Structure formats: C-alpha cells, structure tokens
C-alpha cells in the first residue's frame, strides 16, 4: 500500500500542466481525482516518477449549456455531473450514469475527464458518452483539437490522447427528449459493472454502448441499425454483442457476458421506448 517514490507538482492552469508534462516527459502523469491512478500506484502497478496535479484547476470544472450541446469541463466531479440540473434536463442519461459510479466518496473525488482519459472499458462514463455521440476536446503543446468519442478509444486503457495532451472538455449533444436507460449489472451495489448498457432511443434512432464488453467501451452499432430498420427490441437486443469481444474473468465468462448484454440491452431499450 506504499507507492514507489515520486515527485509532485501542482498546476493551476491547463497551459501550466501541459508545459510541466512536456518538461518531465513520459514518466510524468496527470493526477485528477486520483481514483484510478492512485490505486494502481499503491499496488505498484503504476510507478510514475512525477505527478502533475490538475485536480485543482478551477476553471476546468463546469457544466454549461452551449446551444445544441452541453459542455463539461474535464475536472468536473462525478457528483456534480450526477446532480447537475442542466444535465438532468438535457442529457439525463449521463447524469444518471454518473450516479452509478462507485460510491459517494468515489463520486466526490473522481472526475469525468479522468474517467474518459483512463479509457477503462469497465468504467461507466466512457461508454455513456460514446452512446451519446460526444466529442472530447484535448489540448497539447500544439494547441487544441477535437476527437469524436468514436475515434478516441484505441485499446485497453489506451486512447487517442498523446502523452503531452490533456483532456479539457467533453461536449455532449442534447438528448432532445429521447427515451433512455442506464443498466448496470454487478454483484455489489458499488462495484464496477460486470456488464453495463447505456442506451437512448428517439423513434427509429437509437444509441447503445456497452460497458466491460471488450478492451474498449463498445458502440453497439448493429443494435442501432436494427432499430433503424424497424427490428423488434428483442431481435435488436440479440445483436448486442456483435461488436463486442468480452473477456472471461472471476465474475463472468465470455458467454455469460454476451448473454447478459442481450438481456440488459433489451431491458434498456424497453425502458427507453416507454
């Protein structure tokens, strides 16, 4: 439970954080809420030599209405996402999913940006923002760029972020009254999902993404196309795992995960269609 030795610097702005990470190179890591990074460090599975604390950059914690989108600062805590009036009104699926992250302590520390940057397929918010068609804004020494969620997740804990880039904002389209459901299946209430489903539906249009069904969050495009083509919910749900490649672990085999995904997608679409 004692991490290897490391240095620590606190950044007060994105620009400062980026200049620090440029100086310290690939052994440096950003520290946001610390709720993914610190457990890895305590088990000595991660041993960065420098932590650049971005957790207190105030102007990166916000939720704002930007017309067609809601924009969320990367350092916004899960609890603020969960309880945001703006999100509850325009992107209720995201607010609801944030309420399923861990326990209250985790939600008060962990950030939406950290969750997305960490690119853990078992996390709730990467899949949810993927289902919603979000865009991520990142900033590096060469300036800002936007990456669509669909292009962001490259592999297990791997994203399109360059080492010296920082995620600064998440842009999520308003749901425009779509029905939605977030299904999280786990053994203890506060655990990571064995399988999770984030889904929304507006008539023939649907977005469905899966948590913990492969090495990245999975966009279940076959399900969405089936709905667009008029398939019944259960026929569409049967295709839940078409894009997925789930692993076997202590809680679930590959087959059981696929089965769960179809049950949960069906339940999610049923709820979203009400």
């Amino acid at each position, binding site marked *: 439970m004692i991490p290897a030795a490391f240095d620590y610097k606190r950044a007060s702005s994105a620009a400062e954080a980026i200049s620090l990470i440029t100086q310290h190179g690939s052994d440096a890591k950003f520290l946001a809420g610390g709720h993914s990074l610190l457990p890895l460090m305590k088990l000595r599975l991660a041993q960065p030599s420098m932590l650049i604390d971005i957790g207190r950059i105030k102007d990166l914690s916000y939720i704002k209405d930007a017309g067609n989108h809601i924009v969320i600062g990367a350092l916004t805590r899960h609890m603020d996402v969960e309880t945001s009036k703006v999100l509850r009104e325009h992107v209720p699926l995201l607010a609801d999913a944030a309420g399923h992250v861990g326990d209250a302590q985790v939600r008060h520390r962990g950030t939406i940006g950290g969750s997305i940057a960490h690119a853990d397929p078992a996390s709730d918010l990467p899949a949810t923002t993927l289902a919603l068609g979000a865009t991520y804004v990142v900033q590096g020494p060469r300036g800002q760029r936007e990456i669509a969620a669909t292009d962001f997740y490259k592999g297990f804990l791997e994203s399109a972020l360059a080492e010296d880039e920082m995620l600064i904002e998440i842009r999520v389209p308003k749901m425009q009254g779509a029905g939605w459901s977030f299904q999280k299946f786990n*053994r203890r209430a*506060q655990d990571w999902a*064995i399988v999770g489903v984030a889904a929304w539906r507006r008539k023939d249009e649907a977005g469905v993404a899966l948590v913990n069904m492969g090495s990245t969050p999975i966009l279940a495009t076959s399900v969405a196309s089936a709905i667009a083509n008029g398939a019944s919910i259960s026929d569409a749900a049967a295709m839940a795992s078409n894009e997925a490649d789930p692993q076997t672990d202590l809680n679930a085999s590959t087959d059981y995960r696929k089965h769960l995904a179809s049950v949960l997608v069906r339940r999610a679409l049923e709820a979203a269609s009400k």
Partner: protein
Amino acid sequence: MHWLPQHRQVDTRSRERDIKGRIMTITENMPTKIIGTRLLRREDPPLLTGEAKFTNDLNIPGALHLAVLRSPYAHARIVSINTAAALAIPGVVAVYAGKDLQSTWAGPMPCAWPVTPEMKNPPHFPLAIDKVCYVGDGVAAVLATNETASRDALDAIDVEYEPLKAVVDLEEALSDKTIIHEGLGTNKSYIWNLKVEATEGCVDAAFAAAKYKVKERYVQQRLLPMAMETRAVAAVPQPFGGDITLYSSTQVPHILKVMTALTLGIPEHQMRVVAPSVGGGFGSKLNVYAEELLCTALARKHNTPVRWVEERSENSQATIHGRGQIQTIELAADDSGKITAVRVRIIADMGAYLQLVTPGVPILGAFLYAGVYDIPQAYDFSCTGVFTTLTPTDAYRGAGRPEATYAIERAIEALAHSMKIDSFELRKRNFIKKEQFPYTAFSGLTYDSGDHLLAAEKAAKIADYAGIRAQQEKQNVPGATKRLGIGMTSYFEMCGLAPSRVLASLNYSAGGWEAATVRILPTNKVQVVTGTSPHGQGHETSWAMIAAEKLGISPDDIDVLHSDTAIAPLGLDTYGSRSLPVGGVAVALACDKVIDKAKRIAAHQLECAAEDLEFANGTFSVKGSPDRALPLAAIAFAAFTAHNLPDGVEPNLEAQVSYDPPNFSWPFGTHMCVVEVDTETGAVKVLKYVAVDDCGVQINPLIVEGQVHGGVIQGLAQALFEEAVYDSDGNLKTTTLAEYLVPAASDVPPITTDFTVTPSPTNQLGVKGIGEAGTIGAAPTVINAIVDALAGLGVTNMAMPASPQTVWNTINNATRGGKK
C-alpha cells in the same frame, strides 16, 4: 461506622461529574436491575471518534519496520537468495533469509491440536528454509528504519526459485501424485473417525432398510476472514533484563504469550502480551503467526523495538483462511421420513501447514451433523485432513459448525424433495422435542435445553411462511423470470468452548476454563479483570452490567480490564462464542466470592452471624431487621482500612475465580429467508431475512442483535458473495476487496431478529453464546431459499457462492435436462 459517612451524601455515579472536577468520592450502592437492558456500548465512542488506539497507532520511538518478502510460487524450492541490493537501500538495517534465523527458533510454529496420535505435522517456521509451500509463504525479512524503505527493499531481493507443481485440488492432493512435504511421504495429515452404533453394523443396516435415502455432496469454499483491521505487531524489548512486550492485533494474548515463549525459548515470565484495540478477528486472529515471532525474535536480536503492519492484499494470503471442505452426507429415513442413520465423509483442506488449531476445525463440526433432530445411535463420520499448496486454513466464525449445519440442513431439504413433502413438515417430524431435554445426542454430547418447534413456528409466523408458499403458487408459473423462494434452517450451535475434560478427550492441548477477578476499591469503584480478549464483542459493557447487577453498583463505576497479560495474567481469550458463557459466568462467580467475603466483614461489624445476613441491592441487612444494614461501600472501605476485620479475614475486597464450564452452551434457533431469483440473469435478491435465535438469558439485547446481524451477514456472504479463488498454479485471484466481495451495507437485506428465551441450566446466568449463531444459520438458509425458488426448473442444488453466473449456469444445466 468506619467509613466516611459524610461522603455518602454525594452521588458520584456519573463519570461526567468526575470529569467536571468534583472530588472523587465514595460510590453509593443502589438497586440495580440492568441485565436485559439495551445499554449503549461503552466501547463505541472511542471507536466512532477515531480515539481508539490499534496496534499500528502506537507511537514507538526508534522502532524498526519489518517487511516480509513472500513467495510468488505456490510450491517451489528456494535455490538462492541475494540480498545485496536490498541492503544497499538507505534505511535498510538487515535482511534475513529463513536459513539465517534457523537457530533463533526453539521449535517450529505451534499446532495445539494433534487430533490423532498419528497426525502428520510438517515443521513450519516463520520463514521458509529451503522450500515454499504457498503463495505468501515468508521467504525473507527486512528490517528498516522506515516503512517505505522496508517495502522498497522487498523489490530488491533477488530470489531464485525452482518451481514445483502446485497442489490446489483436494481430491488431487489425496492422490499423492505430488507430495508437498516430502518428509511425510503423503499429503494426508490425518484421518479422524467417529462411529457411534447402538449395535454393531446398525448404520449399514439402517441404510439397507431405509425407505428413503439421500447422498449429497457439498463444497465449503475457502473464505478470507477479512477483519477490518489487518494484523499488526510491535515487539518492544525493555532496556534491561530481557523482558519483552509484544503488542499484537490478536484475539488470544494469553495463548500467544505461552506459545511465543515456548517457540522462542523466552522465559514465560519475561513475556508480556498486549492486545490494544483490535478491529475484528472472526477467528483469523486466534493464532500464533510468523510475524509475531519474527518481531519478537528480531527485537531481541537488535535490542530495538520492531513493528510490522500487514497490507490488505498481504492479509488475503498471509492470514489464515476459513472453511475449505468437501462434504459427502448420507441420510437414511423410514417411510415417515424419520431419519434413521447419518453417514458423513469430509475432505478438509489444511492448506500448506497446520496452524494453531487447523486440524481440529472439522472435528468441532463432527458433533453437529445430527442438527436439531432426534436420530438414533447410528452415525458414521470420517474426516481426512489433507495438505495443499495454499494458505493454511484455521478457525473462522463458526469453525466446523457452520459446515456441519449446512450439510444437514441442505440434506434434509434433499430428503424432503425425494419424499415430495414440505421440508418444514419433515423437520417437525424429526425435531428433538422440548420434553426430551436434556438430550444426549448420538455424538455423545448432552444438549442442555431447547425448543426447536417454538423457534421454528415463531420464524414461520414472522416470515409469513404460509403466505409465501401461497404467493409462490401464483408467481412461479412456467416461463416466469422472477421466481420466489423461501428457505429455512433450524440449528443447534455447540459453543462456549469448552469443558476442559471434553477438550482433553479431543486431544486439544489446552483447557477451556476462564478466569475473572473482581476487585472493589476503597471508594467502592470496581475493577473487573477478565481473561477474555474482546475485539468487537462489547465485553466491557456486558461484564460491567453483570457486575453491576450482582454488586448493586452503577456500571459506570465499574471498569473492565483485559487483553494485557500483565494486568490480566490468567485467561484463555476469546473465540468459539465462549466469552459470555465461560468468561462472563466467571465474572458473576467472582462477584459472588467477593460478596461472600464482604458478608463476613459485614457480619462482624453488625455483630451477627454471616448466615443471618442477606445481600440485595448492594446492601447487607439482617434478615428480619432491615434497619440493621451496611452497604457494600462501607465494607469496601473497612476492608481497605483493615481497622476492624474479623479474625482470619485478610484486608481488601478482591476475589479471583477460574471457571471450567460443565458443558458446552447450546444456543439454537430457526432462520428463514425469502428470495427472488431473476432467471434471465441469475441475480438473487434477498427480500426478507428472519432470525429467531435462542441464546438463553440476554445480558444486553442490543449487543445480541448486533452479533446476530453481523453473523447473518457473514453467512449470507458465504452463500452469495465470498470465495477465495485460486488458479491452477495456486495463485490467489481475490487478493483485494475489489475481487473478494465482502458485502457492504447496501448489499444486505433488512434482517428481522427475534428471540425465544430458554435459559441455560448449566450456568447461574442462564446464558449461551451468540457470536457465531448467525453465521451458522445464514448460509444454508439462503441456499435453501434459492434452490426452493428454482425447484420448478429442476434445480436441486446450488454451489456457493451463488453468484449470478453460477445461478444462471445451474438453471441452464437443469433445464437442459442435465443432472444436478
């Protein structure tokens, strides 16, 4: 009057007043009816405010930090150990391999329970010498001036291993294909048999004649005890003379003192063991561990305090595991379902070595396979203890009795199923009847009291057994995906360990008595000194209540001293739900003894015969003339001044008792649980849990309920959540709380507790233990409910833990027409 009458005017019973700085004065005696009240636990404020000091909170200047390098292999030879790089780390003081310390040990680590004379017990040392036998086995010890350096050094030690084949599976271990301890020539540690036959061959005859027979196989998965506080140790040598104080997060300071002295060759009177606040144990701290011996030995060697604290994932591997049995149980029954014979075969997983009571755990269960049923003397039990290359097992909440209860309470369900009758009805046909107590069971032990029908009917009423059965008819129709089930367990628990003579007959190396001292100070404040060692059970509150009731003194004026062998030198500690029925009764007896002495002084001062005095509400009065009276407070002061004592009576009011119980204590009860199973996902939702327990007279119902709640949750955890999972190479896959699923508050159902009260006839308080009963009742209750919910789908058994995946697979296998 030789005591200070003016001080009687001031009521100083409240501690607050003392804190506010009033003069400490003599405490008044008062009528005290406190047994049976829900007094809040005095232990809680320091625990809840973080004021309580645990071993690792102790500030010990100059202490060196111990870290233990642990084997990453389940089974391997140690080829070489290179410590040079570790020694070069700043702050590292010394690094020892097993060989370096070999001469330090006067003997191997102790196993106190050689269950048979032939039992095989491989030598086991705090650090492995040339071979490691489980992942987590200690290989090297680092001492450093700070904890960080000690952990860094572990990464820098270079050990070359020659890996050998891991032995994980119990049946495979029995085959002796790979022998773990070559010197023993086999992986079998022992075979322990108990055959009780009214007439020779009657077991076989009963099976031959039986109308109904069932044969069931159950697996008791390994469990991690997961006390909230991991283990911690600090050994502090005194500057001169060789005395040493060992602080440890232990349940057994007294046993630890004797065993450490023996294992290290330290004169026992030079060892003092202190257990500061201890954050739970569940049996896992009923042991003598390598780190306790290492800290003590190295503190002596370096003449400096040495401390160690266990990391959580280290705790998963280096602290004993619980359960780990494969059980086969057979029941024979006549045409009415009356059980006529029981046959039991057990393979018990010892793990890599025998720890303190490892081999005895399944034997404790041997006496409970009859459950609460009236079964003739036709019992055939055999247990084979076998070594594996896994963490040693040992006592874990219930220790052998939950396993036994699970087997009989699952098997009776199977019997009811084969007879196509309701299992509650079958239980009723077999219950030992109230009027049969005291009842001598086929195992030879005498159940002192019980009323199983009463407890079962009370539980059925609270759980609405009939209503649930009716609702099932409607709900569990073909195609239903949410199926309702109700399960029950009626248990007998054998606790209050234990009559010393019974322990002798089981080859246990110690007794089962408990000691207590009651000391009335000059100002009528009381010290109760107990040999029990509480670590969450609330003895300070309960023992104060017992003494308060006895002495007619407010519990606030009674201090309970424990868990320090210098303060409480005699004792046998806390485990096996023994503390109240043995230790608490000892407190009551010591009170009686003090009162007897006080009575002689009172008689002297009141100028009457002791027989003419009665003692009530803290006051001695002459029978028939209540105005001739003296409160205990007056006697306490008189005993202190010793100005006017009768001839032959020593000064001071103090008495010590060592109490050896005449019998075990026999709590019992019925638990019921209602579940809903989602057949699409396999998820189990516990809708209702009802526990009706009978622990005799309750000293403090609040504490009793707390014990039942915690116990039920631990049993429910075995049924639904917890399992120490190993891969085929002997690596533990569940080393953190992310993988090892201890349920949290949000994962447990509301628990309705209720009670029947059948006082124990074997002790003056009428009390029985309640520490393990909840755990014993819960696991079979939950599994019975799940199997009941799925009965319509052909499911007849369910492995533990009944994870959603396991439930889903079991349903699939059953509905595909597969066998159970």
